[in-house]
């Protein structure tokens, strides 16, 4: 049976304006971008974020260099930029409320026993990270969500949470370390650091 084409191979085809390859990448990543955007900027604007992110992929695919990193990192950085661009129109309070909702959803994911959307990500690693996020202490999960999903700097997180900057940095470091360890455990020795 033929194996699925890698994201990197598909990106190379998108650079040549292969719409079929573009559609496959859309199916692999749109759900992630939409869920993130819907939580942070609302469902209506989430559609704009998804469309803009993928059109940037379409326009800029030739700039992706597989020797410098994985496609997922490259594309999700584009999506993240689009989300944060939309977030800048909102006040800090609304961003914090949206981030808190994400933190609650992640925290409840395993404990609530609610059925997870297995189609959302084809990566086993996402499930491992979700499990790790759910098991993190609340304050550590919160700094991850505020930093990554809501785009706050560590200084801003210190002000939002009322914790000293050093504490925020320590929580971030510990959280990332646990996520990384959990990911390595889940994926076995085949997993390698991409950074």
């Amino acid at each position, binding site marked *: 049976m033929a194996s699925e084409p890698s994201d990197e191979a598909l990106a190379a085809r998108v650079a040549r304006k292969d719409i079929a390859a*573009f559609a496959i990448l859309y199916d692999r990543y749109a*759900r992630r971008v939409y869920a993130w955007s819907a939580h942070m900027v609302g469902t209506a604007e989430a559609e704009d974020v998804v469309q803009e992110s993928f059109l940037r992929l379409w326009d800029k695919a030739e700039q992706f260099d597989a020797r410098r990193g994985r496609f997922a990192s490259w594309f999700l950085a584009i999506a993240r930029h689009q989300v944060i661009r939309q977030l800048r129109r909102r006040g800090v309070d609304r961003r914090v409320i949206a981030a808190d909702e994400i933190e609650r*959803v992640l925290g409840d994911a395993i404990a609530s026993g609610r059925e*997870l959307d297995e189609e959302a990500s084809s990566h086993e690693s996402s499930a491992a*990270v*979700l499990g790790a996020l759910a098991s993190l202490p609340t304050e550590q999960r919160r700094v991850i969500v505020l930093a990554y999903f809501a785009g706050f700097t560590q200084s801003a997180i210190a002000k939002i949470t009322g914790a000293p900057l050093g504490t925020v940095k320590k929580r971030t470091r510990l959280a990332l370390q646990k996520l*990384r360890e959990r990911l390595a455990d889940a994926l076995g020795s085949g997993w390698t650091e991409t*950074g």
Partner: protein
Amino acid sequence: MANEDMKEFDESGVAEELPGALAMASPHRQPTELRGRVLRAAEARAGRSRGFRLDAALFRPLGAIATLILVTALIVWNLQLQQGLADERTLLQQLRENARESVIFEVVDSPGSQKEMLRAVGPGRPGEDPPYGKVYTNANHSEVVVMGGRLPNPVAGHEYRLYLTDRSGAIVNVGVLKVDASGFGYLIYQSGMRGPAYPAARLYLQPSGATSPGGTLVLAFTAP
């Protein structure tokens, strides 16, 4: 987030898994029509892009050539303009130094003055600037002032003679243009009418005493 903060996430190797984890846990589902909309937008953009690339590929070289031609033409035109102005200044300076008749300056340098450029005809002499001249008339005067510059001294038995063509097509033998050692010469022609106008002028190098155009055409002007 500051780049430095994000770097820590990137180096951890888990950042790219975070959106997938959220998507698994999130109740939000994208609208089914969004996929088609995005794909259509990409295809539409591809069509525009192909068209643009085709147009750009076609017109970019043409644009460069057109720009080159335009720039070259402007440079040539500017050089000719500068040369014409320099020639005119030289002629007028020589006229001031040589002319004694005050009417010349009234024709040449007063309101109502009209001038036409006499240009060299035929191949130039290697290493030398071509001869040139001016024909001045004035709406308030009946005299015609003709000047020439850089004219080689005529060989023995020859002279420069100017012929004007009036509006009826009649050719008028204006007279001899005598040149000095520098190649400068001028003459004044009394037309007998106020504000004369001539659509053509010819300066010939011809045997002395000629009465009609002939010999070597040296300078000429014809109104467009």
